[in-house]
């Protein structure tokens, strides 16, 4: 398969916003003229159960309509998933893993089933979300971390898109809280 396309897999637990994050990223990509697909994996979802969602981003129309088997990047919204699922499944050498955790990078690295040549990032997104948004919802924070780690989109594009969408959907003040959250996540990952 031609690799001019970026493929991202999101791992979360039902209710953490993995699907929403996958869709938000695709929307932001489409808004700047790229092509994108986003889809959750539909199973017996319930709050707390492991769920997955996917985003594809490319400069040309995406004709593939099959699951993402070899993602370039994996985002993990809940560190307890590492005990349950192999989040590194299908990741190629050099693949990116971003985990929401209060634990250290070394502790997380030891838990990954595939150890070689991965670019691992850890960020305490739940704490950051509580500090900025006031709710323990890690998904928008992880969007900032993802863009920081991969530059899959220009960061200002993500910020403007979130500001616009959240202002319309919720309120300008909620939008600014989320913008603050993604900015801090982006900067933290950039420093790492």
């Amino acid at each position: 398969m031609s690799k001019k396309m970026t493929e991202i897999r999101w791992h979360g637990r039902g209710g953490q916003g993995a699907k929403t994050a996958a869709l938000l990223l695709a929307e932001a990509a489409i808004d700047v003229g790229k092509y994108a697909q986003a889809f959750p994996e539909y199973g017996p979802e319930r709050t707390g159960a492991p769920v997955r969602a996917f985003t594809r981003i490319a400069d040309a129309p995406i004709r593939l309509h099959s699951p993402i088997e070899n993602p370039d990047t994996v985002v993990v919204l809940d560190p307890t998933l590492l005990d349950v699922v192999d989040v590194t499944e299908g990741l190629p050498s050099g693949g990116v893993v971003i985990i929401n955790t209060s634990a250290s990078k070394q502790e997380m690295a030891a838990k990954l089933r595939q150890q070689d040549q991965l670019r691992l990032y850890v960020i305490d997104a739940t704490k950051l979300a509580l500090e900025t948004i006031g709710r323990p919802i890690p998904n928008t924070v992880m969007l900032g971390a993802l863009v920081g780690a991969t530059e899959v989109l220009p960061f200002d594009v993500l910020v403007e898109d979130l500001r616009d969408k959240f202002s319309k959907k919720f309120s300008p003040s909620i939008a600014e809280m989320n913008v603050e959250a993604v900015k801090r996540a982006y900067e933290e990952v950039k420093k790492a």
Partner: protein
Amino acid sequence: MGKVMALTGNEAVAEAMRQINPDVVAAYPITPQTELMHKFAEYHADGLVNTELVLVESEHSALSAVVGASAAGARAMTATSANGLALMWEIVYITASLRLPVVMAVVNRALSGPINIHCDHSDAMGCRDSGWLQLYSENSQEAYDNTIMAVRIAEHPDVLLPVMVTLDGFILSHTMERIDVLEDHEVRDFVGEYKPRRALLDVEHPFTVGPLDLTDYYFEHKRQQMEGMAHAEAVVEAVSREFGERFGRHYDTVEEYQLEDAEVAIVAMGSTAGTSKEVVDELRQAGEKVGLLKIRMFRPFPYDRIRNALRGKKAVAVLDRAVAFGSYGGPVYTDVRATFYGVSDAPVLVNYIYGLGGRDITPAHIRTAFDQLKSIARTGRVETLVGFLGLRD
């Protein structure tokens, strides 16, 4: 012209329906169609359409209400999936027999049982002989465009038959993609104002709908229905051509992809056609002469186009996302085989059943099919005529 939007397949079809602004929509929710009607009901509640929205107690009633509205002279639409379509069954045939130009989105889902909410084509394939036209969509853009074109095709005086626009459940209906949405006035101009030839509400010109039709004329009416279906192919071509000229997105009854000099080819419908194109490109880069024939219009079946596109190939695999139990392979396969009866340069034709109940179909599966075709082309030996892709042992 138009704007780019990030929409799921369901939202894209709902958007087309908002722009078409039908007189009457009647529907009942069923996964994976629910989100489509949810969105349209939202447009209705927000006053963005003038549609009379009839919320009924079953799919049988939904299509019955649509039939009544259409006979009364309204432009009427609905949408359903799987068991909902099965419950409509009686009225599906009646819609076509009464020559009512209804447009219905079918979000493809496996028929029960056991219960499965995921994609296959068993629902729409159950209606292949019902007298409806069927357009299959490769992606959500095509589902949006097909919905708009379907109105013109159904209402064409040479056709006057209902049209099903299908999109693969979840794979398209719940996947967000980039959609080029036309301006509202462009869609309104394209579909035009509906002027039915006869309408029950036109009391100055009374006529009878659906009377008793016994041994005297029923047979002749069926023949007329066959003629309407026979005219449909040229109308689908003409409406698709006009759509392409106006809006720059070109469609045909079938699409030949890298087919002209191909030695082996795959025939596919729906979203799998897109996945197959990726594999064709990959194998072409490796110097292999492979191609794809995508069938967009399954009913009426474009026999001549398909025969001409595939004749002279060494081996062809037809992919079926449905079973025709007790038949010689899947429904698309039997039709493709029939086009080649008595044709001297017919390819070897094999069949793969795949993706039942939403089983994944990946590029690796398509490559497997091409590998088999290349082996048949090389050796002339066919191991199995009707096989499977992605089936567990």
